[in-house]
């Protein structure tokens, strides 16, 4: 009898010790994660500060990208006003602008990347033409990357700002291009018009 009690007592002790151990590792994991996150935070703030240092970047002066950029900016402005119809209209202009683009001046290397950007952008524009505003914004996010890459590829003679909204898409954040220094957020529209910061100035 005594023996059984010992065995039971011992196993209870043992089991509870196990549990504690588990809890400890769990909380340890959690704190590890926290420190990781802090480190990431520090990183991103460091990135920001280094960005501020060379906020200005010069891009090759090239006016051939202007029609595409103008159509893009029209779309951006429509989204800042929460206007689905105006955004759809701008989507059409983007399609035309890409069709009008003179590819003969591109180098062979540029040509490949340009074709990829064009194909992708046109698809996004097509979706923007026929979709509700939330979906337009999802495609606008991708289109913004494309237009930004296009500027990196062939340049522009415009002065533009690369803006970033940290809150869009469940705080994943998204960038856009603007012609004005004042922030007008195309992702959140009138809900939060001034959310965002300038990451880079082009020209």
């Amino acid at each position, binding site marked *: 009898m005594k023996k059984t009690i010992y065995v039971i007592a011992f196993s209870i002790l043992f089991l509870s010790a196990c549990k504690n151990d588990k809890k400890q590792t769990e909380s340890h994991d959690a704190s590890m994660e926290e420190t990781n996150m802090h480190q990431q935070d520090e990183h991103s703030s460091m990135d920001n500060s280094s960005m501020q240092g060379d906020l200005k970047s010069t891009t090759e002066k090239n006016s051939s990208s202007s029609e595409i950029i103008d159509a893009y900016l029209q779309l951006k402005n429509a989204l800042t006003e929460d206007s689905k119809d105006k955004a759809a209209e701008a989507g059409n202009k983007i399609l035309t602008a890409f069709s009008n683009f003179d590819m003969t001046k591109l180098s062979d290397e540029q040509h490949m990347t340009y074709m*990829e*950007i064009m*194909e*992708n952008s046109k698809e996004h524009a097509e979706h923007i033409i026929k979709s509700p505003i939330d979906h337009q914004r*999802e495609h606008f996010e*991708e289109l913004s990357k494309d237009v930004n890459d296009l500027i990196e590829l062939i340049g522009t003679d415009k002065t533009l700002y690369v803006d970033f909204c940290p809150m869009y898409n469940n705080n994943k954040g998204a960038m856009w291009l603007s012609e004005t220094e004042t922030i007008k957020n195309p992702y959140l529209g009138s809900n939060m018009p001034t959310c965002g910061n300038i990451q880079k100035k082009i020209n």
Partner: protein
Amino acid sequence: MLFFFLIVFVGIQLVPTNHNQSSVISKTEFNNYIVVPKNIQNILKNSCYDCHSNNTNYPWYNKIQPASWFLEKHINEGKKELNFSTFGDYSKRKQKSKLKSIINQIRDDKMPLKSYTLIHRNTKLNELQKKEVIEWFTKLKDSV
């Protein structure tokens, strides 16, 4: 009048349709191009490939017009948006874009289409499947 419709109905049964089925497995097929875990493969095959690949698992009513035309149109539109059978042919830029759209569409319950899951009950994704697919595709998107 009824007789007229009957004639038309019988008549359209004779119009041939193109079947979206191919025995060729291309190198650019999603499964060959990317290592896809079994559980994700099953979900894709069961809920996506009917309209987003070169191989449709046709339902019985495909034998009847005009249902078959309706399906053909759906499949063509679906493949134009996204075709898993030729995924590897897309540029990296397009792949990334498509992966993001897949994630968003599943997250927002826009895909598989309501009209499809209504008839094909077993193609609807449950919350666990949604979570698995979204997590896996997010990882994939970040690695492309």
